[in-house]
């Protein structure tokens, strides 16, 4: 499969503990298998402690790129948490950016305390639509809870990304890497999570 742009820049964002590192690794490994150069840069340290986290993926047929995407150069944003989509698009967005966004908030402590406001989902949607070329909103956390654990959220969002056809990977390539990564009893649930995400965006 070919790239719509070289390098193609993807950001996966969320809150520490949501599994964005695993999601970026799955996608990265599947792409290397298809002979792409892939560089992934991750925010870390805050990954388990409620901070905003990002993985930058840079996909190229030509060469290895730096692990950080320059300002305004993201082509795709996958957000495991809705305001994190806004945070990333504010800095890395451009008129051609696409966004795939989980609709369920994780409230920062500043909001719970009462020092900050969390915007309404409607306001978030409007803003993303105003800044992105195309956007998809997926109730990934709710689907995950219905599958028995919030831990499936990241795989559902990987499925949702697969359904958009924004990155040069066939569905089979995703499925194969999930099979390799979850040997044993967790495989069936993860494959189901992937499918549930995929059907939310496919053809949309």
């Amino acid at each position: 499969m070919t790239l719509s742009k070289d390098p193609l820049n993807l950001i996966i964002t969320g809150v520490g503990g949501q599994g964005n590192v695993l999601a970026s690794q799955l996608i990265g490994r599947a792409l290397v298998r298809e002979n792409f150069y892939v560089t992934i840069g991750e925010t870390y340290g805050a990954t388990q402690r409620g901070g905003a986290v990002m993985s930058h993926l840079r996909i190229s047929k030509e060469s290895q790129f730096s692990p950080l995407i320059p300002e305004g150069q993201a082509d795709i944003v996958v957000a495991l948490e809705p305001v994190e989509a806004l945070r990333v698009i504010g800095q890395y967005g451009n008129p051609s950016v696409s966004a795939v966004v989980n609709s369920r908030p994780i409230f920062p402590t500043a909001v719970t305390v009462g020092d900050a406001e969390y915007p309404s989902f409607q306001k978030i949607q409007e803003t993303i639509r105003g800044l992105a070329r195309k956007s998809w909103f997926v109730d990934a956390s709710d689907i995950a809870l219905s599958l028995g654990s919030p831990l499936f959220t990241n795989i559902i969002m990987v499925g949702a990304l697969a359904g958009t056809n924004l990155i040069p990977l066939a569905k089979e390539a995703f499925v194969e890497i999930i099979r390799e990564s979850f040997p044993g009893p967790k495989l069936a649930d993860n494959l189901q999570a992937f499918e549930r995400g995929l059907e939310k965006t496919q053809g949309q």
Partner: protein
Amino acid sequence: MSVIKKNAPGSNELLMGNEAIARGALEAGIQFAAAYPGNPSSEIIGTLSEVAEEMGIYVEWSVNEKVALEAAASASFSGLRALSAMKQNGVNVASDFILNLNLSGVGAGGLVLVATDDPAAISSTNEEDSRFIAKLGDLPLLEPATFQEAKDMTKWAFELSESINSLVVLRSVSRISHARGNVILGELPREKKTARFDTSKIFIPVSAPLRHLTLHMKLNKVREIYESSPFNGYTGPEKPELLMITSGSGWFYSLEAVKTLNVKDHVGILKVGTTWPLPSKLLARHMANVKRVLFVEEVDPFLENNVKELAAEWSPEIGSWTFYGKNSGHVHPFGQINPDLIINAVSKVMDKPYAAREGGYGQKALEMTKTLVPNRDLSFCAGCPHRATFWAIKNALKLDGRGGFVAGDIGCYSLGLGPAGFFQVKTMHAMGSGTGLATGFGQLHKFGFDQPVLSVCGDSTFFHAAIPALINGIYNKSNFVMVVLDNSATAMTGFQPHAGTGKTATGSPAPVIDIGKLCQALGVRVETCDPFNLQDTTEKILDLINAEGGVRVLISRQKCALVKAREEKAKYKVHVDPEKCLGESCGCARLCTRIFKCPGLIWNKEKSKSEVDEVLCTGCGVCADICPQSAIVREEN
């Protein structure tokens, strides 16, 4: 899932920089690896420990970095290739040994020290450039710029070490160590060497000045090797208007800047992978072609100042230059560097305007999102025992009322300095420093000091550096309470086992060093509490701070919430009874969501009630004890 042991030369894999370093070590045939965890270095030994048994090598988590390097050196003295890996602070801890090992030399087996820096101190208390240890100790230094080089340089570093019998330093940074990229695998050797210490040899820095001279001669030999090293390379026109000299993470950013600004016919890039001693002939050759030089490197102007030193010697013959970099302010001399910073530096030097986003989109995007996006303060995880301990400390000190305070230490509980730990921690420096400082505070009563002093340290930090401080306090009859936050994990760096966990790096059973018994053997009063029992913990702290005189120890023991979530089912199912929660009208000032602030508790503004977020709650049940209305209900699972 581990590709690190894959015996498939030529296979193209996505590896983390640290995995690439581990793979390079395996391809070099290392038989011994030792380290203390610290980001961004932890995955090097972590990766090796996973394959150790199968690959027939020895891997350990050592008690601290100095001991780790000493253990690795013993293997080198006995003819085996060995590696130690540590973050910048670890290099400081190991530096006394390093600055004797340089003089004694290493054994027949190559010895490599991987030093990983954390620019911007994302996972550290300090920011520091560990490359200076190479200059300080007259040691060869290598800096990988790509993931492939991380592997290849590590492998070659062992050959270099053996060719001059010296420790070799490989310096990485988080944007290499913790990033991922393509790596083509090489061959894995099969043969293993037999370890034997040749008693006709000594490893002692006797006649230090003479050995110092020999060390300089070794470095001259290394310089010659470096002149033709494939880890150095130039790309660009023959006579560029600007020469960028870069190392490590700066290489990708330099390439990106030249590409983005479309200046490849005017700007050349010299990538230096061998940064101490510098290959002076190679540099002179390239510098002879230019008048302007921009340095791109991360943290301090190490490369920049060392090249300038050489340039001062060359200038009568080759000419003079205008230098740009950290000293000129084009690249800031602190924090991380990134592509934007380097694009802007080249844009300024080459007078080539650059705008990241055209047509006002950038400003619009920032304006539209800025007011909507709340900050995310770091906090303890939902169900973290540290929150409970700091809550108890806060209440005990308040009840005591004499202005007591906490001397902090290094670990997740460092967050105790901020809102997550109710601002209880007032000092924080190196591993073990909290207790070291407490031993001093505890002597100040002679000068009118009357505040209770508590030190806190985690279980892994206790073994690393707090034991000497504790003994110092006992011996000198200091007056303080040491609180050991025993969560049975090195949680901050990824749950590596340590001397108190009963498990080795490779997963085999190990003797458990019991912190409580160890303290009792030192003759001090030791109490133990479960921080999830807030009342008992608070009472014990109060009692200990009032039992003035000598050192007292409290072990606050409860497993890390993340480890617990993996190992066992949640103890309680927790919910808020909306009938009992009085919200704003309660008079508690929203104690649970405004002050206690576990991320598992959220405030429903519309209903004016607290709620439990089922996605985040780990079911520890502690919040049920703080609600004055008993509105938070815990039911046994």
